[in-house]
């Protein structure tokens, strides 16, 4: 059972546009949501994260919007750049358990110049 779902699976935007990647989850105990960025042949890198006590987290061009009631979150990448082309993974965990991070299937973003 996929506990974390991502959509779309792939997305293409033009340089300068805003890319929106969506994520939803099933487990109501999840309270920590990191997003990872992965380039081909490399390990995932933590991009930005949010806890369930917040409804928004911003870091430069990257913003997470979180809706606890609907169990949904989204990653907005403003002013997208070709260097942002990568696969983005949404993940979720119950903070403090220290053991399991559940990942979505990933979303491949392509930014065309």
């Amino acid at each position, binding site marked *: 059972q996929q506990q974390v779902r991502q959509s779309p699976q792939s997305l293409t935007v033009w340089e300068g546009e805003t890319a929106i990647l969506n994520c939803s989850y099933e487990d109501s105990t999840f309270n*920590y949501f*990191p997003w*990872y960025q992965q380039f081909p*042949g*490399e*390990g*995932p*890198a*933590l991009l930005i*994260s949010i806890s369930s006590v917040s409804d928004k987290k911003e870091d430069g061009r990257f913003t997470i919007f979180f809706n606890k009631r609907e169990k949904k979150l989204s990653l907005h990448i403003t002013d997208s750049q070709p260097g942002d082309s990568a696969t983005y*993974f949404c993940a979720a*965990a119950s*903070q*403090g*358990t*220290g*053991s*399991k*991070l559940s*990942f*979505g*299937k*990933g979303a491949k973003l392509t930014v065309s110049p």
Partner: protein
Amino acid sequence: AQTIHQWPVAEIKAVGSPLSLGCTIKGKSSPNLYWYWQATGGTLQQLFYSITVGQVESVVQLNLSASRPKDDQFILSTEKLLLSHSGFYLCAWSPGQYQDTQYFGPGTRLLVL
């Protein structure tokens, strides 16, 4: 600063042969350690995690085993490789003590023929 190193970078092995992959964390004492497997273009599947030396928990059975012989070292191994073991193996660490953010290593690419 913490650094994570994985070895080897890549392996090509025959079906039925043994395998040993390694991971070392420097700059952090008593981290939580994790092994993940990623199929090409796929999501990240957690295989094992360890919160202390000598203690390893299995998350998914894939005819693999893991050990933590030292505080900063995590080993993934099997005596007989299967074709299905091909993929990208990632080691990750987290600070532990209710800090669940996981940081990934560069990965090891494995091809089983």
